[in-house]
Structure formats: C-alpha cells, structure tokens
C-alpha cells in the first residue's frame, strides 16, 4: 500500500472525527478532544514520515505512480510541513483557548495539512490542483475564524480573493500545458515538451508567466505579495505561522516539481525571470519591513524577503550550480519553517498574555516573559543569518550557489539585503532587552503559556543544534535533491 494512502487515511479520519465533535453538547468535549485527536494524528504521521525516511536512507526505494512520486524530496517536505503543523496545533491549545469554534478550527487545520502533504507527493497537474485547493480553502476560513473581529474578516476576504485568483491563473496555465503536451503527468510533460520546435514559443512563455504568477501568489513573490501583510496581521497569529511556515513551503515544493522537473526545457525563459524576482522580492520585503510598527506585520514582510532568498535557488536551477542551488532551497525551507514559526508563535504568546502586539508590548519583554523573549531573539537572529545559527548555513549554501551559477551580482545583493534585514531584527531585540518599559504594571512577570513556551524551546533547540551541526539537515536535503536527478 502506498504511503500517501496512509496519510490520507490518518488525516481524513481524524478531521472528520474532530468536525463531528463540534456537534457535542459538552463544552469540555468541544474544547479538549479536538486538540488531542489532532495531536495524535500529527504525531502518527510524523512517525510514519521519519520511519519512511530512515528506510529510504538505508535502501533508496522511490515509488512512482501516475499521481504521486514517493521520493525523498516528498518526504523531506512532508517532514517540514508536519513539523510546522505540530507546532501550530500545540500552540493553538493555549492561543485559541476559549474560542467558540475550536473543533472546526482543528478540523480545518488537519485538512489543510493533508493538502500540504499531498502537494509534496503530487506528480500530476490534476493532483496538484486538487491538493492545492485542499490546502488553500481551509486556510481562507481559518484566517477569518474570528467572525466578530473586523481585522480577521478583512484578512480573510483579501486572502480569499487573491487565493482564488491564484488558483484560477494556475488552472489556465495547466490548461495551456495540457494543450501543448496532451498530458498532465509531469514526466510525460517533460518528454513531450522536448518535441516542441522552439522553447520561445509564445504559448509556452504565457504558460510560464501564468505558472509564476499562480505559484508566486502563494510563495509571496514580489509583484503578487500585496495580500501577505494584511492576511498575516489580521489572521489569528497561529494561523499566520501556519501560512508563512507551512502553506508557503508547499508552494515551493510544487514550484520545484513543475519548473525544475517538468519544464527544464523552457529554462531559458524562467531562470532570468526568477533572478529578477528574487532581487525584487528580497529588496522590497526588507525595505518595507524596516518601516513597520507592528511586529507581526514586520514578520510578514520579513517572510516575503526570505522568499526572495529561496528564489535564488530557482534562478540557478538550470546552470552548473543546479544541485547546490536546490540543496540550498530545501535546507532554507526547513530552517525558515522552524525560525518563522518560532517567531510568529512567540508573537502569539505575547498576544495571548498581553493582548496587543504593538512594539510597546515588547519593551523589556525579557523580564516579563523570559522564555518567549529568548526564543524570539534567537529566531530573529537566525532569520538575519547570524552564525552559528541555522539560517546562516542555508543562506551560505544559497549564496554560494549564486556565485557558482555565474550570478555573483545576485549573491552580492542578497548579502547586502541580509545586512539590511539585521536593522529591523536587531531593533526588536533591542526593544526586548534594552528599552525600559512604559506604563503601569509593565514590570511585573507574566505567566507564559505553557505549551507555546514548550514549542518555542523545541524550535530554539532545533535552530541552535542545526546551527552547530548543519550537516544534520544538509545531508537530508542533499539526499533529497540527488534522489530524483
């Protein structure tokens, strides 16, 4: 039996169960059981993934079916998104405590996670569309879960309109691929495209542009990033972590499958496009982040900037540095998922404990919430790429790939951008550790939410351990990239 079937079974059964619990009369059932069921489902599927990965490392055995590729690349991404979901579910126990639709919340979270996992395995455009929607549609609702909060509503409606736009564009691009090649299987697309007389065929160029726009809306590439700050700021903060660290990463795995695996024949067209988009994305993200007054909005822009670094890997993906670039993408995807979810969840802890996330709430946070402040500081330093934290190594791999791929200008721009980004990351850290608090009662210690603190400590530990032994994840990423070449 194929592994994908197991994931589908685990998540479908558990989220059906959870959604049925919302009908229960007992409020303790509605509040508690959904959390434990989701936790069990995620732990089970994480165990399954780790088990399969260990098996794969000792004896590589990729399974290719028409709809799914069960290779190491898929397992790597499945591991990343499941880890993010686990963080989010654990933190939601504290953050969403007392909300009315808790069972619905966990059920949608599980469905969206299943969509991301399926997306990591999908190798057919039909499957990609279905998994893409399964991932996206629940998150529209999750962003607007607080129905009486105008900000949550606004985030949801903006996210929904842009998200629906992206799936429409994606469908049109797929219809053009189907017209050109007569198939939707990515391997068959690869073979049939080679018979195309000319890679500069206008329909092929239109198709590429639509793919970039469709995926770019999820991956937060710059001309399509407008919804990101609003959605991340207005949505419940745990959902911002989920969107930024989870669904965005799923966008990257599909982009790897579609561009690098299926469309290398058209790479003349897309490498330059990705190089320019990488430059625009990281520069604009960093500059906009500098001017923000709200920490979650700043993190949203920083998340855009990080997508820019990831795009470097795509820009070099057809040249001599292809392998190194893709290893860099995978490595940074994992690291960014850990750092970004830690940063957002720390903000969620502050939101829950203090009630607002303006910069003032962070003044001398280390006295009030030491664990949260420490984890946020470590996550921000890792995002900025300070050695010896994990973000430094993955950025190093990406920038080296840019130099090897004859795009030294891109590497220089990325290094300058990293230096710029330290400006706003350090500002928050200064706020937490140096600034004196203003206002009454701002000195007193606050009880930190237990589970969020636990998640933050785990994420911090991963950040530091991977920073000291980068080969832990680097080797996995290398195995994943080498597996399908």
């Amino acid at each position, binding site marked *: 039996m194929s592994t994908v079937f197991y994931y589908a079974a685990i998540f479908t059964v558990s989220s059906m169960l959870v959604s049925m619990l919302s009908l229960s009369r007992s409020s303790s059932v509605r509040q508690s059981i959904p959390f434990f069921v989701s936790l069990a489902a995620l732990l089970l599927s994480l165990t399954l993934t780790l088990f399969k990965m260990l098996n794969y490392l000792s004896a590589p055995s990729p399974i290719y079916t028409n709809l799914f590729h069960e290779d190491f690349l898929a397992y790597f991404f499945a591991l990343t998104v499941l880890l993010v979901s686990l963080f989010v579910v654990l933190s939601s126990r504290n953050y969403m405590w007392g909300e009315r639709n808790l069972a619905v919340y966990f059920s949608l979270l599980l469905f969206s996670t299943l969509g991301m996992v399926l997306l990591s395995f999908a190798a057919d455009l039909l499957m990609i569309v279905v998994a893409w929607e399964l991932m996206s549609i629940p998150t529209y609702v999750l962003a607007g879960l607080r129905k009486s909060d105008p900000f949550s509503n*606004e985030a949801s409606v903006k996210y929904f309109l842009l998200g629906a736009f992206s799936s429409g564009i994606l469908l049109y691009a797929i219809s053009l691929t189907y017209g050109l090649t007569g198939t939707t299987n990515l391997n068959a697309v690869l073979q049939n495209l080679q018979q195309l007389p000319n890679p500069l065929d206008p329909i092929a160029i239109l198709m590429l542009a639509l793919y970039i726009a469709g995926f770019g809306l999820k991956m937060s590439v710059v001309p399509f990033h407008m919804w990101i700050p609003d959605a991340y700021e207005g949505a419940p903060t745990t959902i911002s972590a989920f969107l930024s660290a989870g669904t965005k990463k799923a966008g990257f795995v599909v982009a790897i499958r579609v561009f690098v695996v299926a469309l290398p024949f058209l790479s003349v067209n897309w490498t330059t496009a990705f190089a320019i988009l990488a430059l625009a994305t990281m520069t604009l993200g960093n500059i906009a982040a500098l001017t923000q007054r709200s920490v979650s909005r700043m993190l949203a822009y920083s998340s855009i900037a990080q997508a820019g670094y990831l795009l470097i890997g795509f820009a070099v993906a057809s040249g001599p540095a292809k392998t190194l670039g893709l290893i860099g993408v995978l490595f940074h995807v994992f690291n960014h998922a850990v750092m970004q979810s830690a940063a957002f969840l720390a903000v969620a802890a502050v939101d829950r404990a203090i009630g607002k996330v303006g910069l003032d709430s962070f003044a001398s946070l280390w006295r009030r919430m030491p664990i949260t402040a420490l984890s946020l500081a470590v996550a921000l330093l890792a995002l900025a790429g300070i050695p010896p934290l994990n973000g430094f190594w993955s950025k190093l791999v990406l920038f080296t790939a840019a130099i090897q791929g004859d795009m030294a200008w891109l590497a220089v721009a990325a290094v300058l951008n990293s230096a710029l980004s330290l400006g706003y990351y350090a500002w928050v850290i200064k706020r937490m550790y140096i600034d004196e608090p203003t206002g009454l009662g701002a000195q007193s210690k606050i009880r930190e939410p237990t589970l969020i603190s636990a998640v933050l400590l785990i994420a911090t530990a991963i950040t530091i351990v991977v920073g000291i032994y980068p080969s832990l994840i680097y080797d996995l990423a290398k195995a994943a990239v080498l597996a399908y070449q």
Partner: protein
Amino acid sequence: MILEPLVNYLFVSVVLFAIGVYGLVTKKNALRMLFAVEILINSANLNFVAFTRYLHPTSVTGQALAMFSISLAAAEAAVGLAIILAVFRLRKDVDVSEIKGLRG
C-alpha cells in the same frame, strides 16, 4: 483547416480570461470580484474541453480536469460567499476599498 474551430474556442477563452483579470483588478465590490474569479476559472475549463476535442481526441484527461475544476470552483465559491457574508454582517458593505483597517 482542422484547427480553425479550435482557434475560435481559444479566442473566446482568452477573452473570458481577460474579462476575469479586468474584473479583479478594477472592481471594488467583493461579490463582483468573486464573479470575476468564476469567469477566470471557466475560461480554463473551456480550454480543457476544446484542447481535448481538437488536439487530443483519444485522451479524457482534459474533460476529467474540467470536471474537477468545476467542483473545486463550487467549493471555493461556497467558502467565498460565506466569508463575504461574514464581512457584510459586520460592516453592512462588501466594498473592498473601504475595508482598510490593516495598514502598515
């Protein structure tokens, strides 16, 4: 020439696509934007069916994809209408340009 009818279909589909993008970019009413998205998705469906009929008559993938995309569009519209309804209950208005509480 055998491709002649296909070009007609593609022309209609491109026009629908353009209408969809135009509607999304210029309209301010969330409902109108939702309609624009539906038109966009239907232009892709037309493409799928036309390509199968004229270029790949032996394969059914195109029709299957069109069926999937119709049902996905329905799911999306259901969720979208619910979200727009929630916004309307709160503000008595669904004008997206008026919804700007979140600013940097």
